[in-house]
């Protein structure tokens, strides 16, 4: 693990993306993405919990022994999720009504666990925080992408009801891409989640492969020299 923040950001957002590369947290990624807005909401809530639990886990990284680290991680995650749930319910109630459904689900997401285990429990606070944050944002991007594809093909809209999640200033995000009643219903039902997740995984692999090929095409010249 490096403390180079640019690498951390690139890994979290693209090259080691939680959903599209590590294929972790697929349950919320598929269950919560029947619209781009839902994907965005779930992603943001997860990003917040990931950042804060990574900070806490790295602060205590020298206090717990290897043998009990997993229960301690469970404890940290569970506590953070509950704290976020209560605070949002009390003070951000409008947002809570939209996101409240998703928050308890974060605790069963293995992506935050993986990052605590792999990064936060071995690294100082700031890199851990950056890792949690960028992994969370990468998760958000992946979920929003899955949600957007499913929403456009399934209901013909994009970011419908985004203003309920983000406030009325984001009304401009709500778009109708296809005319009403033309969507394929299956795409917003569970099968659509598997299809779109699979297709996006393929797309990411193809892009990665192409860039690798480009690198190797450029490489012989340098290696020959």
């Amino acid at each position, binding site marked *: 693990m490096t403390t180079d923040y640019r690498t951390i950001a690139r890994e979290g957002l693209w090259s080691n993306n939680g959903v599209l590369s590590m294929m972790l947290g697929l349950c919320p990624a598929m269950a919560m993405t*029947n*619209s781009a807005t839902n994907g965005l909401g779930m992603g943001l809530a997860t990003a917040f919990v990931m950042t804060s639990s990574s900070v806490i886990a790295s602060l205590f990284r020298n206090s*717990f022994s290897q043998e009990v680290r997993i229960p301690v991680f469970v404890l940290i995650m569970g506590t953070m999720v509950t704290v976020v749930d209560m*605070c949002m319910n*009390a003070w951000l*109630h409008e947002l809570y009504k939209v996101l409240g459904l998703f928050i308890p689900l974060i605790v069963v997401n293995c992506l935050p666990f993986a990052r605590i285990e792999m990064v936060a429990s071995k690294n100082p606070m700031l890199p851990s925080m950056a890792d949690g944050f960028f992994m969370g944002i990468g998760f958000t991007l992946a979920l929003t992408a899955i949600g957007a594809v499913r929403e456009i093909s399934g209901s013909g809209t994009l970011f419908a009801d985004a203003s*309920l999640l983000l406030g009325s200033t984001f009304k401009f995000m709500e778009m109708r891409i296809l005319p009403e009643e033309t969507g394929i*219903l299956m795409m917003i039902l569970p099968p659509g989640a598997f299809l779109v997740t699979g297709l996006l995984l393929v797309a990411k692999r193809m892009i990665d492969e192409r860039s690798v090929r480009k690198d190797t095409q450029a490489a012989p010249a340098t290696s020959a020299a």
Partner: protein
Amino acid sequence: MSSQRTLIHGLILAAFCLGFGMLLVTTNSLTKDDIAQRAIEDRQNSLKQVIPDSIHDNNLAADTLTLKNEQGKDVVIYVATKEGKVGGVAFETSGIGYSGEIKVMLGVDPEGKVLGARVLMHKETPGLGDKIEVKKGDWILRFTGLSIGNPPLEKWKVKKDGGQFDQFAGATITPRAVVRAIREGLQFFDANKAKMMEFKSSNTAADGAGKAAATGETK
């Protein structure tokens, strides 16, 4: 030696449990009152949508009575009174939709006419069944003013079943469940009308205070 190590691990874990437990206790005590307050506000908001302000001067959330419906389930009735007289009631009714229960808050006036109906909670398919929500469509508004008899009981169905209410394209089960929930709610009202009408408000004397409370500042 190994039992000593086990003890140490146990103690470490216990210390973490204690610490995070205390964090949870603190957060809970900080947020408890606000959360309770939000729950009251939510309920008053949903009541407000089915009971117009003009027909009551009491605190809807406070003046309740509990009756049993046909299935023997308790139903909480929020009674709207003005100057001591019952001007309408609101209660929850429910139906089984495409994916689970749909809860509807139903407001009814003394003649048995619908004052308003709103879906409180549902798990229907987004983009299809969720048009029953008032923020996603005006379908639910068409029930306002209707009663058993207008249309006649046998017309309280979706069009597909020979009734008079539109279903949505791609979703019949959801509107069917809502129509049924409202019809059953009205029948429940008719059956229990006498008990609801003789309700005496607890705070009609404090006219101004009751009004203030009803608009959302209960504290």
